[in-house]
């Protein structure tokens, strides 16, 4: 029941619907059933948003993606400007011993995770309370699709290669893919950081 109450308090479904779901869980429905119902409710809500208020929905998608891309751009600018100093610190004078392992890839993944979490937080913060979870879910889905298509080489290519070669590519790439697939979840993490007591600043403008 605690999980139910926590979930329903976070996603802010319509009151009668949330009450129905809590009543059903009280009568013995499982948490998995509840999760499925909540997910379906959010999908129905998101579908309604894009059908009835497409400009609002698209505006929030642009806001989320814009925030993530701006932060990623800033992260790259900082990385490039810090590069000479970093190299001076990282490499010892003989240029053979490396003090740290500087991986641009790791840096971009970490900055991407925080950028996307900020995007999720920003969308949740500015959306109307009843639209919040649905919009975060749509942003999550769009980032997930972007990651899957953007990393097509690692996710799908092995299936088209001969077995040994395909297995090699898959094993090389799946750690990267696992990390990249986790990035969309940071959108949800950022979206969940919003608490009920925080008033929605743009709630009156988005409906």
């Amino acid at each position, binding site marked *: 029941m605690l999980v139910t109450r926590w979930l329903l308090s976070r996603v802010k479904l319509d009151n009668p*619907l949330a*009450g*129905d779901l*809590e*009543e059903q869980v009280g009568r013995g429905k499982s948490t998995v059933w509840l999760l499925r119902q909540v997910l379906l409710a959010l999908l129905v809500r998101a579908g309604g948003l894009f059908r009835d208020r497409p400009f609002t929905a698209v505006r929030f998608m642009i806001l989320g993606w814009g925030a993530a891309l701006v932060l990623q751009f800033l992260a790259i600018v900082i990385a490039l400007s810090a590069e000479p100093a970093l190299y001076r610190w990282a490499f010892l004078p003989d240029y053979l011993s490396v003090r740290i392992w500087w991986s641009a890839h790791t840096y971009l993944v970490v900055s991407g995770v925080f950028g996307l979490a900020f995007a999720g937080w920003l969308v949740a913060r500015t959306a109307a309370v009843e639209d919040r979870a649905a919009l975060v879910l749509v942003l999550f889905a769009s980032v997930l699709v972007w990651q899957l298509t953007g990393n097509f080489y690692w996710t799908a290519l092995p299936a088209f290669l001969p077995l040994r070669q395909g297995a090699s590519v898959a094993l090389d790439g799946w750690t990267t893919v696992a990390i990249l697939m986790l990035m969309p979840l940071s959108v949800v993490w950022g979206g969940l950081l919003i608490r009920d007591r925080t008033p929605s600043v743009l709630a009156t403008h988005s409906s």
Partner: protein
Amino acid sequence: MIMSRESLGNFELMVLLALIGLGDDAYGVPIADVLTKTLGREVAAASVYAALERLAQKELVTSRMGESMPERGGRARRYFRISGAGLREVRATRSALTTLWSELPVLKCEPA
């Protein structure tokens, strides 16, 4: 019987029929239960509410809020009832469907 220009969807019609069957005690849970039993597959509560919302916008159903209940986390039930316009729409749909069915030569021969 003349149907309105915006005819009922299949699911909306089933929701209206469930409402008629349930009478005054119709809220989300029993409506979803009736549809689940009838269709033989689980019906999402959100789909039921979305259909009810559309029907309310067409003024085919009316609703009232009940009292808040502890087993629902302090939330109230929303009871739905079919309106006069809703009843007329159901009858018109039944009439149109019956006419269409009866004009199918193959199905005429089937046992009822």
